[in-house]
Protein backbone atom coordinates (compact mmCIF):
# COMPACT_ATOMS: atom_id res chain seq x y z
CA UNK A 1 0.00 0.00 0.00
CA UNK A 2 1.19 3.49 -0.68
CA UNK A 3 1.48 5.98 2.13
CA UNK A 4 -1.54 7.86 0.79
CA UNK A 5 -3.69 4.73 0.74
CA UNK A 6 -2.53 3.75 4.22
CA UNK A 7 -3.36 7.17 5.51
CA UNK A 8 -6.83 7.08 4.03
CA UNK A 9 -7.56 3.64 5.45
CA UNK A 10 -6.20 4.30 8.93
CA UNK A 11 -7.94 7.66 9.15
CA UNK A 12 -11.24 5.97 8.33
CA UNK A 13 -10.99 3.78 11.46
CA UNK A 14 -11.30 6.82 13.67
CA UNK A 15 -14.17 8.82 12.25
CA UNK A 16 -13.00 12.16 13.64
CA UNK A 17 -9.65 11.74 11.95
CA UNK A 18 -10.57 13.18 8.59
CA UNK A 19 -7.06 14.16 7.67
CA UNK A 20 -7.52 16.31 4.61
CA UNK A 21 -7.75 13.51 2.11
CA UNK A 22 -8.82 15.83 -0.66
CA UNK A 23 -5.28 17.16 -0.73
CA UNK A 24 -3.95 13.74 -1.64
CA UNK A 25 -2.93 12.82 -5.14
CA UNK A 26 -5.01 10.07 -6.62
CA UNK A 27 -2.11 7.62 -6.85
CA UNK A 28 1.49 7.15 -5.81
CA UNK A 29 3.39 8.38 -2.80
CA UNK A 30 2.38 11.83 -1.85
CA UNK A 31 5.12 14.21 -0.91
CA UNK A 32 2.69 16.95 -0.07
CA UNK A 33 3.35 18.42 3.31
CA UNK A 34 0.24 20.53 3.27
CA UNK A 35 -1.72 18.40 5.71
CA UNK A 36 -1.13 20.62 8.68
CA UNK A 37 -4.53 22.27 8.58
CA UNK A 38 -6.38 19.17 9.84
CA UNK A 39 -9.19 20.00 12.26
CA UNK A 40 -7.97 20.25 15.83
CA UNK A 41 -10.24 17.54 17.24
CA UNK A 42 -8.71 14.87 15.01
CA UNK A 43 -7.40 12.05 17.17
CA UNK A 44 -4.69 11.04 14.70
CA UNK A 45 -2.18 13.30 13.05
CA UNK A 46 -0.50 12.16 9.87
CA UNK A 47 2.69 13.55 8.44
CA UNK A 48 5.40 12.56 6.02
CA UNK A 49 7.49 15.62 6.64
CA UNK A 50 11.12 14.93 7.44
CA UNK A 51 10.71 11.17 7.25
CA UNK A 52 10.62 8.58 4.50
CA UNK A 53 7.70 6.79 6.17
CA UNK A 54 4.15 7.74 7.02
CA UNK A 55 4.12 9.02 10.61
CA UNK A 56 1.05 8.78 12.80
CA UNK A 57 0.78 10.73 16.02
CA UNK A 58 -1.74 9.03 18.28
CA UNK A 59 -3.22 10.21 21.61
CA UNK A 60 -2.27 7.87 24.46
CA UNK A 61 -5.87 6.80 25.04
CA UNK A 62 -6.16 5.40 21.51
CA UNK A 63 -2.70 3.81 21.33
CA UNK A 64 -3.61 0.21 22.07
CA UNK A 65 -6.75 0.28 19.95
CA UNK A 66 -4.86 1.66 16.95
CA UNK A 67 -1.99 -0.78 17.34
CA UNK A 68 -4.28 -3.78 17.57
CA UNK A 69 -6.13 -2.65 14.47
CA UNK A 70 -2.89 -2.09 12.56
CA UNK A 71 -1.81 -5.63 13.39
CA UNK A 72 -5.09 -7.42 12.77
CA UNK A 73 -6.64 -5.57 9.84
CA UNK A 74 -5.98 -7.71 6.74
CA UNK A 75 -5.10 -4.75 4.55
CA UNK A 76 -2.55 -3.26 6.90
CA UNK A 77 -1.36 -6.42 8.70
CA UNK A 78 1.59 -4.84 10.49
CA UNK A 79 2.83 -8.03 12.10
CA UNK A 80 6.46 -7.01 12.53
CA UNK A 81 7.37 -4.42 15.15
CA UNK A 82 10.96 -3.88 14.13
CA UNK A 83 11.90 -0.95 16.30
CA UNK A 84 10.56 0.50 19.51
CA UNK A 85 12.30 3.67 20.61
CA UNK A 86 11.95 5.74 23.74
CA UNK A 87 12.15 9.47 23.12
CA UNK A 88 12.67 12.56 25.19
CA UNK A 89 11.36 15.45 23.13
CA UNK A 90 11.81 17.94 25.95
CA UNK A 91 9.46 18.43 27.69
CA UNK A 92 7.36 15.60 26.28
CA UNK A 93 8.35 11.97 26.69
CA UNK A 94 7.21 9.43 24.21
CA UNK A 95 7.65 6.22 22.31
CA UNK A 96 8.16 5.66 18.58
CA UNK A 97 7.01 2.39 17.05
CA UNK A 98 8.29 1.28 13.65
CA UNK A 99 5.96 -1.27 12.09
CA UNK A 100 6.32 -3.33 8.96
CA UNK A 101 4.04 -5.83 7.29
CA UNK A 102 5.82 -9.02 6.28
CA UNK A 103 2.98 -9.66 3.84
CA UNK A 104 2.54 -6.27 2.14
CA UNK A 105 6.01 -4.90 2.98
CA UNK A 106 4.79 -1.43 3.83
CA UNK A 107 6.08 0.53 6.81
CA UNK A 108 4.44 2.95 9.16
CA UNK A 109 5.70 4.87 12.18
CA UNK A 110 3.45 5.43 15.18
CA UNK A 111 4.33 8.04 17.79
CA UNK A 112 2.79 8.63 21.16
CA UNK A 113 3.78 11.25 23.70
CA UNK A 114 2.91 12.61 27.09
CA UNK A 115 3.75 15.84 28.88
CA UNK A 116 3.77 14.13 32.28
CA UNK A 117 7.45 13.69 33.15
CA UNK A 118 6.83 12.48 36.69
CA UNK A 119 4.53 9.57 35.93
CA UNK A 120 4.61 8.89 32.20
CA UNK A 121 2.73 5.76 31.19
CA UNK A 122 1.31 4.17 28.07
CA UNK A 123 -0.54 0.97 27.39
CA UNK A 124 1.79 -1.91 26.68
CA UNK A 125 1.69 -3.47 23.22
CA UNK A 126 3.49 -6.62 24.39
CA UNK A 127 0.23 -8.56 24.02
CA UNK A 128 0.21 -7.65 20.31
CA UNK A 129 3.89 -8.13 19.50
CA UNK A 130 5.92 -10.29 21.87
CA UNK A 131 9.11 -8.44 21.01
CA UNK A 132 7.66 -5.37 22.74
CA UNK A 133 8.12 -6.99 26.13
CA UNK A 134 11.91 -6.56 26.10
CA UNK A 135 11.88 -3.31 24.20
CA UNK A 136 9.42 -1.75 26.62
CA UNK A 137 11.55 -2.83 29.53
CA UNK A 138 14.49 -1.09 27.90
CA UNK A 139 12.43 2.09 27.49
CA UNK A 140 11.29 1.87 31.11
CA UNK A 141 14.87 1.42 32.20
CA UNK A 142 16.27 4.43 30.34
CA UNK A 143 13.31 6.81 30.19
CA UNK A 144 11.17 5.84 33.17
CA UNK A 145 8.10 5.40 31.03
CA UNK A 146 5.75 2.84 32.55
CA UNK A 147 3.75 0.45 30.41
CA UNK A 148 0.34 -0.58 31.69
CA UNK A 149 -0.44 -4.32 31.59
CA UNK A 150 3.18 -5.22 30.92
CA UNK A 151 3.80 -8.77 32.22
CA UNK A 152 7.20 -8.12 33.79
CA UNK A 153 8.01 -4.43 33.98
CA UNK A 154 11.31 -4.03 35.76
CA UNK A 155 14.70 -2.63 34.93
CA UNK A 156 16.52 -4.58 32.27
CA UNK A 157 20.07 -3.27 32.03
CA UNK A 158 20.49 -1.15 35.14
CA UNK A 159 20.24 -2.25 38.73
CA UNK A 160 16.95 -1.78 40.56
CA UNK A 161 18.38 0.87 42.85
CA UNK A 162 19.72 3.03 40.00
CA UNK A 163 18.69 6.63 40.48
CA UNK A 164 17.13 8.38 37.49
CA UNK A 165 16.72 7.52 33.85
CA UNK A 166 19.95 8.00 31.88
CA UNK A 167 18.63 8.58 28.38
CA UNK A 168 16.45 11.48 29.45
CA UNK A 169 17.91 14.77 28.34
CA UNK A 170 17.89 16.22 31.86
CA UNK A 171 19.78 13.30 33.41
CA UNK A 172 22.93 14.36 35.20
CA UNK A 173 25.74 12.11 36.34
CA UNK A 174 28.84 14.12 37.05
CA UNK A 175 31.02 11.11 37.72
CA UNK A 176 30.26 8.70 34.93
CA UNK A 177 29.30 10.95 32.04
CA UNK A 178 31.85 12.70 29.89
CA UNK A 179 30.31 15.83 28.44
CA UNK A 180 32.14 17.68 25.74
Amino acid at each position, binding site marked *: MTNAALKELIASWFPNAKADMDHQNSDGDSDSNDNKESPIENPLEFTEE*GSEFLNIQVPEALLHELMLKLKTHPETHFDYLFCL*TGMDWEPALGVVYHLESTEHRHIVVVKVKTEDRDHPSFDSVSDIW*KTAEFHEREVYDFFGIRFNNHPNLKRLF*LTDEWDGYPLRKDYVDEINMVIK
Partner: protein
Amino acid sequence: MQESTTINNFKSEEYFINMGPQHPATHGVLRLLLTIDGEIIKRVEPDLGYIHRSIEKMCERDSYQQIVHLTDRMDYLSSHINNEAVCLTVEKALELEIPDRVKVIRTIIGELTRIASHCLWWGVMGMDVGALTTYFYGFRDREMINDIFEETCGARLTMNYNVPGGLMWDIHPNFVNRVKTFIAHFKTKIPEFDRLLTENIIFQKRTKGVGILSKEDAISFGASGPVGRASGYSCDVRKYHPYSALDRVTFNESLQTEGDTFARYKVRIQEMWESLSIVEQLIDNIPEGEHRIATNAVIKLPKGEYYQKVETARGELGVYIVSTGTKNPYRLKFRSPGFSNLSLLNHIAVGGKIGDLVATMATLDLVIPDIDR
Protein backbone atom coordinates in the same frame (compact mmCIF):
# COMPACT_ATOMS: atom_id res chain seq x y z
CA MET B 1 10.47 -22.73 47.59
CA GLN B 2 7.93 -23.66 44.91
CA GLU B 3 5.23 -26.25 45.43
CA SER B 4 6.41 -29.81 45.26
CA THR B 5 5.16 -32.27 42.72
CA THR B 6 5.60 -36.01 42.67
CA ILE B 7 6.93 -37.66 39.54
CA ASN B 8 7.34 -41.43 39.58
CA ASN B 9 7.25 -41.41 43.37
CA PHE B 10 10.23 -39.09 43.54
CA LYS B 11 9.67 -35.62 44.86
CA SER B 12 10.78 -32.86 42.56
CA GLU B 13 11.16 -29.23 43.32
CA GLU B 14 11.83 -26.18 41.26
CA TYR B 15 15.02 -24.36 41.99
CA PHE B 16 17.13 -21.60 40.53
CA ILE B 17 20.57 -21.71 39.12
CA ASN B 18 22.71 -19.02 37.59
CA MET B 19 24.15 -19.54 34.16
CA GLY B 20 26.82 -16.91 33.76
CA PRO B 21 27.77 -14.11 33.88
CA GLN B 22 30.98 -15.99 33.25
CA HIS B 23 29.98 -19.10 31.40
CA PRO B 24 31.76 -20.46 28.32
CA ALA B 25 28.55 -20.99 26.40
CA THR B 26 27.20 -17.49 26.82
CA HIS B 27 30.15 -16.11 24.81
CA GLY B 28 30.28 -12.96 26.82
CA VAL B 29 28.94 -11.52 29.99
CA LEU B 30 25.37 -12.70 29.91
CA ARG B 31 23.67 -14.01 33.01
CA LEU B 32 20.70 -16.29 32.70
CA LEU B 33 18.53 -17.04 35.70
CA LEU B 34 17.26 -20.52 35.13
CA THR B 35 14.32 -21.97 36.96
CA ILE B 36 14.60 -25.69 36.59
CA ASP B 37 12.87 -28.80 37.78
CA GLY B 38 15.44 -31.56 37.64
CA GLU B 39 16.81 -31.17 34.15
CA ILE B 40 13.71 -29.52 32.71
CA ILE B 41 13.79 -25.79 32.15
CA LYS B 42 10.79 -23.94 33.53
CA ARG B 43 11.90 -20.40 32.88
CA VAL B 44 14.87 -18.52 31.47
CA GLU B 45 15.30 -14.95 32.51
CA PRO B 46 18.22 -13.01 31.08
CA ASP B 47 19.91 -10.50 33.34
CA LEU B 48 21.56 -7.92 31.13
CA GLY B 49 23.71 -4.86 31.46
CA TYR B 50 27.07 -6.22 32.62
CA ILE B 51 28.82 -4.48 29.74
CA HIS B 52 26.30 -1.82 28.86
CA ARG B 53 28.14 1.31 27.75
CA SER B 54 25.12 3.37 26.74
CA ILE B 55 26.38 3.90 23.23
CA GLU B 56 23.10 5.61 22.34
CA LYS B 57 23.72 8.28 24.95
CA MET B 58 27.35 8.68 23.85
CA CYS B 59 26.14 9.18 20.29
CA GLU B 60 24.14 12.22 21.39
CA ARG B 61 27.35 14.06 22.23
CA ASP B 62 29.47 12.78 19.32
CA SER B 63 29.83 13.87 15.72
CA TYR B 64 28.66 11.53 12.97
CA GLN B 65 32.21 10.52 12.08
CA GLN B 66 32.83 9.55 15.69
CA ILE B 67 29.64 7.52 15.93
CA VAL B 68 30.89 5.17 13.22
CA HIS B 69 33.72 4.16 15.52
CA LEU B 70 31.37 3.31 18.35
CA THR B 71 29.30 0.93 16.26
CA ASP B 72 31.92 -1.72 15.77
CA ARG B 73 31.98 -2.13 19.53
CA MET B 74 28.42 -3.42 19.36
CA ASP B 75 28.38 -6.58 17.27
CA TYR B 76 32.14 -6.80 16.85
CA LEU B 77 31.83 -9.76 14.47
CA SER B 78 29.84 -7.64 12.03
CA SER B 79 31.81 -4.47 12.62
CA HIS B 80 32.06 -3.51 8.96
CA ILE B 81 28.31 -3.91 8.45
CA ASN B 82 27.57 -1.86 11.58
CA ASN B 83 29.82 0.94 10.30
CA GLU B 84 28.12 0.73 6.96
CA ALA B 85 24.69 1.09 8.57
CA VAL B 86 25.57 4.42 10.16
CA CYS B 87 27.30 5.67 7.03
CA LEU B 88 24.32 4.73 4.88
CA THR B 89 21.98 6.58 7.21
CA VAL B 90 24.13 9.70 7.18
CA GLU B 91 24.54 9.51 3.41
CA LYS B 92 20.80 9.06 2.98
CA ALA B 93 20.16 12.14 5.09
CA LEU B 94 22.72 14.22 3.19
CA GLU B 95 21.44 12.80 -0.13
CA LEU B 96 24.99 11.96 -1.18
CA GLU B 97 25.55 10.07 -4.41
CA ILE B 98 27.98 7.33 -3.43
CA PRO B 99 30.40 6.11 -6.14
CA ASP B 100 29.84 2.61 -7.48
CA ARG B 101 33.30 1.59 -6.44
CA VAL B 102 32.48 2.28 -2.82
CA LYS B 103 29.22 0.37 -3.00
CA VAL B 104 30.85 -2.73 -4.48
CA ILE B 105 33.77 -2.74 -2.05
CA ARG B 106 31.43 -2.26 0.88
CA THR B 107 29.34 -5.21 -0.21
CA ILE B 108 32.34 -7.47 -0.78
CA ILE B 109 33.79 -6.70 2.63
CA GLY B 110 30.35 -6.98 4.19
CA GLU B 111 29.87 -10.47 2.82
CA LEU B 112 33.41 -11.49 3.82
CA THR B 113 32.54 -10.23 7.30
CA ARG B 114 29.47 -12.45 7.27
CA ILE B 115 31.55 -15.47 6.29
CA ALA B 116 34.12 -14.70 8.98
CA SER B 117 31.38 -14.33 11.56
CA HIS B 118 29.72 -17.58 10.52
CA CYS B 119 33.10 -19.36 10.60
CA LEU B 120 33.58 -18.29 14.17
CA TRP B 121 30.01 -19.22 15.02
CA TRP B 122 30.45 -22.64 13.41
CA GLY B 123 33.60 -23.34 15.40
CA VAL B 124 32.01 -22.24 18.63
CA MET B 125 28.79 -24.08 17.90
CA GLY B 126 30.70 -27.33 17.66
CA MET B 127 32.61 -26.51 20.80
CA ASP B 128 29.42 -25.78 22.72
CA VAL B 129 28.07 -29.23 21.99
CA GLY B 130 31.37 -30.89 22.79
CA ALA B 131 33.31 -31.03 19.52
CA LEU B 132 36.40 -28.96 20.23
CA THR B 133 37.98 -29.72 16.84
CA THR B 134 35.58 -27.48 14.93
CA TYR B 135 36.92 -24.47 16.75
CA PHE B 136 40.31 -24.81 15.09
CA TYR B 137 38.86 -25.43 11.65
CA GLY B 138 36.59 -22.41 11.89
CA PHE B 139 39.36 -20.16 13.08
CA ARG B 140 41.76 -21.36 10.41
CA ASP B 141 39.52 -20.09 7.62
CA ARG B 142 38.47 -16.98 9.47
CA GLU B 143 42.13 -16.12 9.82
CA MET B 144 42.47 -15.79 6.04
CA ILE B 145 39.66 -13.23 5.96
CA ASN B 146 41.16 -11.34 8.88
CA ASP B 147 44.47 -11.17 7.03
CA ILE B 148 42.71 -9.69 4.00
CA PHE B 149 41.03 -7.13 6.24
CA GLU B 150 44.27 -6.29 7.96
CA GLU B 151 45.94 -5.51 4.68
CA THR B 152 43.15 -3.36 3.30
CA CYS B 153 41.49 -1.86 6.37
CA GLY B 154 44.40 -1.78 8.79
CA ALA B 155 42.61 -3.79 11.44
CA ARG B 156 41.40 -7.33 11.83
CA LEU B 157 38.24 -6.98 13.86
CA THR B 158 37.10 -3.43 14.48
CA MET B 159 37.87 -2.20 11.02
CA ASN B 160 36.43 1.32 10.80
CA TYR B 161 36.88 1.15 7.06
CA ASN B 162 33.69 3.08 6.31
CA VAL B 163 33.37 6.80 6.66
CA PRO B 164 30.37 8.91 5.72
CA GLY B 165 30.93 9.50 2.02
CA GLY B 166 32.89 6.38 1.22
CA LEU B 167 35.84 4.41 2.48
CA MET B 168 38.75 5.46 4.63
CA TRP B 169 41.19 4.57 1.84
CA ASP B 170 41.31 2.52 -1.32
CA ILE B 171 41.73 -1.24 -1.33
CA HIS B 172 45.18 -2.76 -1.14
CA PRO B 173 46.64 -3.88 -4.51
CA ASN B 174 46.65 -7.48 -3.25
CA PHE B 175 42.99 -7.37 -2.25
CA VAL B 176 41.41 -8.89 -5.36
CA ASN B 177 43.92 -11.71 -5.62
CA ARG B 178 43.75 -12.63 -1.98
CA VAL B 179 39.96 -12.67 -2.01
CA LYS B 180 40.02 -14.95 -5.06
CA THR B 181 42.47 -17.25 -3.31
CA PHE B 182 40.19 -17.32 -0.32
CA ILE B 183 37.11 -18.15 -2.42
CA ALA B 184 38.89 -21.08 -4.04
CA HIS B 185 40.16 -22.25 -0.66
CA PHE B 186 36.88 -21.89 1.19
CA LYS B 187 34.87 -23.71 -1.47
CA THR B 188 36.78 -26.84 -0.55
CA LYS B 189 36.37 -26.19 3.16
CA ILE B 190 32.60 -25.86 3.54
CA PRO B 191 32.15 -29.51 2.45
CA GLU B 192 34.73 -30.29 5.13
CA PHE B 193 32.55 -28.47 7.66
CA ASP B 194 29.68 -30.64 6.52
CA ARG B 195 31.62 -33.87 6.82
CA LEU B 196 32.97 -32.93 10.21
CA LEU B 197 29.86 -31.64 11.94
CA THR B 198 26.71 -31.39 9.81
CA GLU B 199 26.67 -35.07 8.95
CA ASN B 200 27.74 -36.16 12.41
CA ILE B 201 24.94 -38.29 13.81
CA ILE B 202 25.60 -37.29 17.41
CA PHE B 203 25.47 -33.65 16.46
CA GLN B 204 22.23 -34.14 14.56
CA LYS B 205 20.63 -35.90 17.50
CA ARG B 206 21.68 -33.06 19.76
CA THR B 207 20.13 -30.41 17.53
CA LYS B 208 17.15 -31.82 15.64
CA GLY B 209 13.80 -31.05 17.21
CA VAL B 210 15.40 -28.88 19.87
CA GLY B 211 14.39 -25.29 20.54
CA ILE B 212 11.60 -25.08 17.98
CA LEU B 213 10.41 -21.63 16.95
CA SER B 214 7.32 -21.28 14.80
CA LYS B 215 7.08 -18.77 11.98
CA GLU B 216 4.34 -16.75 13.72
CA ASP B 217 6.40 -16.51 16.89
CA ALA B 218 9.52 -15.61 14.92
CA ILE B 219 7.72 -12.59 13.46
CA SER B 220 6.06 -11.66 16.73
CA PHE B 221 9.35 -11.80 18.63
CA GLY B 222 11.02 -9.71 15.95
CA ALA B 223 13.45 -12.50 15.09
CA SER B 224 15.66 -11.72 12.14
CA GLY B 225 18.64 -13.11 10.31
CA PRO B 226 19.26 -16.86 10.33
CA VAL B 227 17.06 -17.28 13.41
CA GLY B 228 14.01 -16.00 11.55
CA ARG B 229 14.85 -17.68 8.27
CA ALA B 230 15.20 -21.10 9.91
CA SER B 231 11.52 -20.82 10.83
CA GLY B 232 10.51 -20.20 7.23
CA TYR B 233 10.20 -16.48 7.80
CA SER B 234 11.60 -14.66 4.81
CA CYS B 235 13.28 -11.68 6.42
CA ASP B 236 16.51 -10.99 4.55
CA VAL B 237 17.01 -7.22 4.51
CA ARG B 238 19.37 -7.73 1.58
CA LYS B 239 16.37 -8.95 -0.43
CA TYR B 240 13.66 -6.61 0.79
CA HIS B 241 15.58 -3.39 1.30
CA PRO B 242 18.78 -3.85 -0.73
CA TYR B 243 21.55 -1.40 0.02
CA SER B 244 25.02 -0.73 -1.42
CA ALA B 245 25.65 -3.14 -4.31
CA LEU B 246 23.25 -5.86 -3.20
CA ASP B 247 20.70 -4.90 -5.85
CA ARG B 248 23.07 -5.95 -8.64
CA VAL B 249 23.86 -9.48 -7.46
CA THR B 250 21.76 -12.61 -7.51
CA PHE B 251 21.60 -14.84 -4.49
CA ASN B 252 19.12 -17.08 -2.78
CA GLU B 253 17.72 -16.38 0.61
CA SER B 254 18.51 -19.40 2.77
CA LEU B 255 15.25 -20.65 4.17
CA GLN B 256 14.42 -23.66 6.29
CA THR B 257 11.04 -24.54 7.70
CA GLU B 258 11.70 -26.71 10.75
CA GLY B 259 12.59 -23.83 13.05
CA ASP B 260 14.73 -26.03 15.28
CA THR B 261 18.37 -25.74 16.24
CA PHE B 262 19.52 -27.83 13.30
CA ALA B 263 17.56 -25.64 10.87
CA ARG B 264 19.28 -22.53 12.21
CA TYR B 265 22.57 -24.33 11.79
CA LYS B 266 21.81 -25.24 8.18
CA VAL B 267 20.74 -21.70 7.31
CA ARG B 268 24.13 -20.35 8.35
CA ILE B 269 26.03 -23.00 6.42
CA GLN B 270 23.93 -22.19 3.37
CA GLU B 271 24.54 -18.47 3.89
CA MET B 272 28.28 -19.00 3.67
CA TRP B 273 27.79 -20.42 0.17
CA GLU B 274 25.53 -17.52 -0.81
CA SER B 275 27.97 -14.93 0.54
CA LEU B 276 30.78 -16.59 -1.40
CA SER B 277 28.66 -16.35 -4.51
CA ILE B 278 27.98 -12.65 -3.93
CA VAL B 279 31.68 -11.93 -3.47
CA GLU B 280 32.48 -13.97 -6.56
CA GLN B 281 30.02 -11.98 -8.68
CA LEU B 282 31.52 -8.67 -7.61
CA ILE B 283 35.22 -9.28 -7.18
CA ASP B 284 36.08 -9.15 -10.89
CA ASN B 285 33.95 -6.10 -11.52
CA ILE B 286 35.02 -3.53 -9.01
CA PRO B 287 34.37 -0.29 -10.89
CA GLU B 288 37.08 2.31 -11.18
CA GLY B 289 36.54 5.60 -9.49
CA GLU B 290 36.81 7.51 -6.28
CA HIS B 291 36.92 5.62 -3.02
CA ARG B 292 35.49 8.55 -1.14
CA ILE B 293 33.60 11.71 -1.84
CA ALA B 294 34.24 14.81 0.15
CA THR B 295 31.89 15.76 2.93
CA ASN B 296 32.02 18.76 5.19
CA ALA B 297 34.43 18.35 8.05
CA VAL B 298 31.50 18.99 10.36
CA ILE B 299 28.53 16.98 9.21
CA LYS B 300 25.15 18.43 10.06
CA LEU B 301 22.13 16.39 9.06
CA PRO B 302 19.03 18.27 7.97
CA LYS B 303 16.22 18.32 10.50
CA GLY B 304 14.28 15.11 10.25
CA GLU B 305 14.24 11.40 10.98
CA TYR B 306 16.22 8.77 9.14
CA TYR B 307 16.05 5.02 9.31
CA GLN B 308 18.29 2.47 7.68
CA LYS B 309 18.15 -1.30 7.89
CA VAL B 310 21.05 -3.58 7.11
CA GLU B 311 21.54 -7.31 7.41
CA THR B 312 24.40 -8.12 9.76
CA ALA B 313 25.58 -11.66 10.35
CA ARG B 314 23.04 -11.84 13.17
CA GLY B 315 20.05 -10.25 11.51
CA GLU B 316 18.45 -6.91 11.04
CA LEU B 317 20.31 -3.94 12.42
CA GLY B 318 18.37 -0.70 12.35
CA VAL B 319 19.80 2.76 12.78
CA TYR B 320 17.26 5.42 13.66
CA ILE B 321 18.58 8.97 13.72
CA VAL B 322 16.52 11.92 14.85
CA SER B 323 18.26 15.12 13.86
CA THR B 324 17.44 18.68 14.79
CA GLY B 325 19.94 20.06 12.30
CA THR B 326 22.94 20.22 14.61
CA LYS B 327 26.26 18.38 14.39
CA ASN B 328 25.11 15.73 16.85
CA PRO B 329 22.07 13.49 16.58
CA TYR B 330 19.25 14.46 18.90
CA ARG B 331 18.54 10.79 19.44
CA LEU B 332 20.10 7.74 17.91
CA LYS B 333 18.63 4.30 18.39
CA PHE B 334 20.23 1.04 17.37
CA ARG B 335 17.76 -1.72 16.78
CA SER B 336 20.06 -4.62 17.39
CA PRO B 337 19.31 -8.10 16.09
CA GLY B 338 20.73 -9.87 19.13
CA PHE B 339 18.40 -8.08 21.51
CA SER B 340 15.27 -9.33 19.77
CA ASN B 341 16.73 -12.78 19.21
CA LEU B 342 17.57 -13.09 22.90
CA SER B 343 14.02 -12.16 23.87
CA LEU B 344 12.70 -15.39 22.37
CA LEU B 345 15.14 -17.63 24.25
CA ASN B 346 12.72 -18.17 27.13
CA HIS B 347 10.00 -19.14 24.69
CA ILE B 348 12.00 -21.82 22.88
CA ALA B 349 13.97 -23.17 25.83
CA VAL B 350 11.10 -23.81 28.25
CA GLY B 351 10.22 -27.46 28.48
CA GLY B 352 13.59 -28.55 27.14
CA LYS B 353 16.59 -30.00 28.93
CA ILE B 354 19.23 -27.81 30.44
CA GLY B 355 21.88 -29.42 28.23
CA ASP B 356 19.92 -28.46 25.13
CA LEU B 357 19.86 -24.84 26.22
CA VAL B 358 23.53 -24.57 25.31
CA ALA B 359 22.90 -25.88 21.79
CA THR B 360 19.89 -23.60 21.39
CA MET B 361 21.82 -20.55 22.53
CA ALA B 362 24.66 -21.41 20.20
CA THR B 363 22.36 -21.18 17.18
CA LEU B 364 20.90 -17.87 18.33
CA ASP B 365 24.50 -16.70 17.86
CA LEU B 366 24.34 -14.05 20.54
CA VAL B 367 27.02 -11.41 20.72
CA ILE B 368 26.56 -9.74 24.07
CA PRO B 369 27.90 -6.23 23.28
CA ASP B 370 25.25 -6.13 20.57
CA ILE B 371 22.58 -6.67 23.24
CA ASP B 372 24.20 -4.45 25.89
CA ARG B 373 24.77 -1.55 23.55
